C-alpha cells in the first residue's frame, strides 16, 4: 500500500498545476475578448464626432440690390447660378458682427464657415427661387450652414486646437450666446463623395464603388465557382490533371492578397490594356481571390447531398448531368449561397489588391457603372487615415463602422441561411 502514499504525496502539486493550467486557458480566451472589445470601443469612440456636424445660423439678405439683380431681371437658372453666394455669406457674417473692422479679424470671421457653404446656399436658393421677391420688403433667409472643419472639431470636442485662433474662439462664444451654433446629424457623410475638406466629405462614392465592384465579383465568381465545384465533385475523372487542379485551388486560397493585385496589374492592366481604378478590373481580381472560397464551400455542399437522391434520379433514367442540375444542385444551393455570401464579405473588406490596380486616386465623382473610375470603402478608409486633420480621423472611424455594419449584415444573413435552409441529412 505504500504506493498509495507515494501517489498521495504528489497529488497536491499536480492539482495545483491543473488549476494553473486552466487559468492560463481562461486568460488566453479573455485576452482575445479584451482585444476585440478594445478595438471596437476605440473605433466607436473615434467615430462619434463624425455623425454630427456643426452648423451656424446666418441671416442671408435676399433683396435684389444685395443680389446685384436689377428689379426687372428674370429669375431663371442662369441668373440664379450667377449670384455671388460667397459674397452673400460674407455679408451676412459682417452684419452679424458689424464692429469687426480689422482685415485680419475679418478673415478669421469669414473662415468660420465652410468653403462649401456657398454651394449649399446656392442649391437651396435654386430649389426655392420664390424666396427672392421683388417687393420692397427686404426678405431675409435664415439658414443653417456648415461650419469649417476646424471650428467643427473645436466645437464638438471642446478642446483647444491650434488651427482655431483666439479671436475665432471669441466669435464662437458669442454665437453660442446668440444660439446661432448647433450640431446636427451629418447627412453629408452619406450623400457626398470624397472631398479635400472633411466637413464636405462623404462615402457615397465609395459605397457605390464597392457596390459595382462586388457586383462584378459576384457575377464572375458565382457561376465559375459553381461550375468548377460541380465538375470536380461530379464529373472529373480521377487523374493527375484533376489532382493538380485541386492542389491549385487549395494553394490559391492561401496566396497573399497582394500577389493577386500584382497579377491584376500585369495581366489585366498591362497586357490587356484595361483601364485602371475601375470596378470591372477590381471585380475581376477579387473574383479570382474569392473563387477558391466558393469552390471549396460549394464542393462541401454538393458532397453532403446523399447518394440516395442521385441514385433515385438515375434509376428513373435521368442522365448524370440532368441528375446534377435538376436534383443535386438545388439541394446544395443553401450551402453554396452561404459560402458565396461569406466570400463576398471577404471581398468587401479587401484593400491591398485594389491598391495595386490603381484605386488610390482621389475621386470626386460618383461611379455610375463598372467602367467609371471608382474607389471602394476599405480603400477610402486607407486614404483618409493618412490625413492629418482630426476630422478625417472621425470620418475614417465612421466609415469603418459602416463597413463593419455591412459585414455584420452579410454574415448574419449567411448564418440565417445556414440555420434555416440547410438540411441535415
Amino acid at each position: 500500500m505504500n504506493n498509495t502514499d507515494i501517489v498521495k504525496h504528489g497529488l497536491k502539486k499536480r492539482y495545483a498545476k491543473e488549476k494553473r493550467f486552466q487559468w492560463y486557458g481562461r486568460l488566453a480566451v479573455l485576452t482575445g475578448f479584451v482585444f476585440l472589445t478594445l478595438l471596437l470601443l476605440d473605433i466607436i469612440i473615434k467615430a462619434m464626432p463624425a455623425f454630427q456636424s456643426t452648423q451656424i445660423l446666418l441671416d442671408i439678405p435676399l433683396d435684389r440690390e444685395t443680389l446685384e439683380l436689377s428689379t426687372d431681371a428674370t429669375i431663371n437658372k442662369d441668373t440664379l447660378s450667377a449670384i455671388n453666394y460667397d459674397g452673400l455669406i460674407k455679408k451676412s457674417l459682417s452684419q452679424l458682427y458689424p464692429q469687426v473692422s480689422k482685415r485680419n479679424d475679418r478673415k478669421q470671421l469669414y473662415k468660420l464657415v465652410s468653403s462649401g457653404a456657398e454651394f449649399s446656399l446656392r442649391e437651396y436658393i435654386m430649389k426655392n427661387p420664390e424666396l427672392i421677391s421683388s417687393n420692397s420688403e427686404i426678405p431675409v433667409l435664415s439658414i443653417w450652414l456648415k461650419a469649417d472643419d476646424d471650428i467643427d472639431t473645436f466645437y464638438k470636442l471642446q478642446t483647444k486646437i491650434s488651427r482655431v485662433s483666439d479671436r475665432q474662439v471669441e466669435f464662437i462664444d458669442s454665437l453660442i450666446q446668440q444660439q446661432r451654433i448647433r450640431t446636427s446629424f451629418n447627412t453629408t457623410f452619406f450623400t457626398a463623395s470624397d472631398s479635400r475638406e472633411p466637413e464636405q466629405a462623404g462615402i457615397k462614392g465609395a459605397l457605390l464603388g464597392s457596390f459595382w465592384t462586388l457586383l462584378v465579383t459576384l457575377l464572375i465568381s458565382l457561376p465559375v465557382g459553381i461550375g468548377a465545384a460541380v465538375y470536380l465533385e461530379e464529373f472529373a475523372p480521377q487523374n493527375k490533371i484533376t489532382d493538380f487542379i485541386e492542389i491549385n485551388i487549395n494553394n490559391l486560397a492561401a496566396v497573399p492578397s497582394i500577389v493577386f493585385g500584382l497579377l491584376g496589374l500585369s495581366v489585366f492592366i498591362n497586357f490587356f490594356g484595361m483601364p485602371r481604378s475601375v470596378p470591372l478590373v477590381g471585380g475581376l481580381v477579387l473574383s479570382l481571390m474569392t473563387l477558391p472560397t466558393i469552390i471549396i464551400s460549394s464542393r462541401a455542399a454538393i458532397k453532403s447531398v446523399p447518394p440516395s437522391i442521385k441514385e433515385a434520379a438515375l434509376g428513373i433514367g435521368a442522365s448524370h448531368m440532368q441528375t446534377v442540375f435538376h436534383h443535386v444542385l438545388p439541394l446544395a444551393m443553401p450551402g453554396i449561397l452561404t459560402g458565396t455570401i461569406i466570400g463576398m464579405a471577404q471581398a468587401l473588406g479587401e484593400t491591398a489588391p485594389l491598391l495595386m490596380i490603381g484605386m488610390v486616386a482621389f475621386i470626386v465623382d460618383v461611379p455610375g457603372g463598372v467602367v467609371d473610375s471608382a474607389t471602394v470603402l476599405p480603400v477610402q478608409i486607407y486614404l483618409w487615415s493618412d490625413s492629418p486633420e482630426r476630422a478625417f480621423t472621425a470620418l475614417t472611424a465612421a466609415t469603418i463602422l459602416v463597413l463593419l455594419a455591412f459585414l455584420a449584415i452579410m454574415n448574419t444573413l449567411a448564418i440565417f441561411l445556414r440555420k434555416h435552409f440547410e438540411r441535415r441529412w
Partner: protein
Amino acid sequence: MNSSALLLLITGLSVIAFITARQRAYIHGASSKLKSLPKHYGVLTALWSGIPALVLILSWMIFQPAYLHQQIIQSLPESITIKGEDSLSLYINTIDLAIANGEASDDPVIQKAILSFNDAEKKSRIILTILVLLLSLSGIIFGLTKKLLNSHARVGVEKVVKGFLALCSAVAIFTTVGIVLSVLFEALRFFESIPFTDFMFGTSWSPQTAIRSDQVGSSGSFGAIPLFVGTMLISAIAMLIAVPIGLLSAIYLSEYASARFRSIAKPALELLAGIPTVVYGFFAALSVAPFIRNVGESIGLSVASESALAAGIVMGVMIIPFVSSLSDDVITAVPQSMRDGSLGLGATKSETIKQVIIPAALPGIVGGVLLAASRAIGETMIVVMAAGMAAKMTANPLDAVTTVTVQIVTLLTGDQEFDSPKTLAAFALGLMLFLTTLILNVIALHIVRKYREQYE
C-alpha cells in the same frame, strides 16, 4: 462593325439557330423517332452556331491590339525605330493617344501612322465580320442536316456543358499560371538590370530611380535583406502573440469550457478573423502605436512612432483565430480512447493534455502554425498603415522597420513608368513573397494531411 454589334449579331443568330433547329426536330420527330427532345437539338445547333464565332471574336479582341501595334512600328521610318526603346514607346504612346482621341496630328510621321493604323483596323474588322458570319451560318446549316437529327443531341449538349464546367475548374490553373508567369516575367526583367545576388544578399535598400532614361539604376540600391529582416521581425512578434493565445484558447475551449461558454467564445474569436485588415491597420496606426510610444517614452525608452511592436501586436491579434481554429480541429480529432487511456491510469486532465493529447496533435498544430506564419508574412494593410518605410536592419521591436509587402505597395502606388527598375523591383519582391508563402503552405498542408490520415 464594332465588337458589341458583332456580339449582338451572333447572339441573334444563335437564337434563330435554336428556334429553327428545334422546329425542324419537332417536325422530324412526328414522322421518325428522335433520340432526344427537340429543345436539345435547338440548343446544340445554337451552340454550334454561337461558340466558334464567339471564340473567334474573343481571340481577335485579345490579339488584335498587338498585331496592329506591330503594323504601326513597321510603318515608322528607320530614323525613329533606331532611337531606342524608351523613345519608341513614347512615340507609340503619342500615336495611341491621338487615335483614342480621334484627332489628327501635325507631325507627318505620326499622321501617316494614324492613317495606316485606321486602315489596317478597318481591314481586319471586315475580315472578322465575314468570318464570324460564315461560322455562325454554317453552324445553323449543320443543325438542319439529317446527320444531326439522327444523333443523340442531348449527349452532344451535355458534352459541351461538361467542357464548359471543366473550363471553369481550369480557371484555377490559369490563375496560378497567370500569377507565376506575370510575376516571374517582370521579376526576370528586373534581374536584367539589377543582378540577383545584389537583390537577394544586398543590405541596402533605397530605391531611387534614374531621372533620365539613359542612366542605369546605379543611383538606387535594391538590396532586399533589410526587407526580409523587417518582415521576419514583425511576423515573429505576431506569432509570439498568436501562438500561445491561440493554442491555449483552443485547448481551453475544446477540453474545459462548458458548451454554453464555447458557443459564445468560439464565434467571438472567429470575429477577429472577419474584421478587415484595413481596420486593424487603422487601429494599429492611430491607437496602438501612439500608446506604445507614450508608455515607452514615459519609461525612458526611445520608441519610434511606427514601431514594429505596434504592427506586430495587432497582426498577432488578427492571426489568433487561425491558430486557435486549426488547433481546435486537430485537438478534437485526437480519439477519445487516447484520453481514456491516460485518465484511466490516474492522470489529471492537464497532464493528459500536456503529455498525451498535444504530442498526438502536434503535427496538426505545427501545420496550423505554419499556415498562420504564411498569413503573417503576406499581410499587407496592417504594415502599410502602421509600419515604417525606412529599411532598417534591426532586431529591436521598438524601432521602425519596413517589410516586403509595404515596399511592394510603395513602389507601385506612386506615379511612375511601368517599366522602371522601381516598379519591376516590386515584382521581384512579389516573386519572393509568393515563393515563400507557397513553400510554407505546401509544407503545412502536407503535414496536416498526413496527420489526418493517421486518425482516420
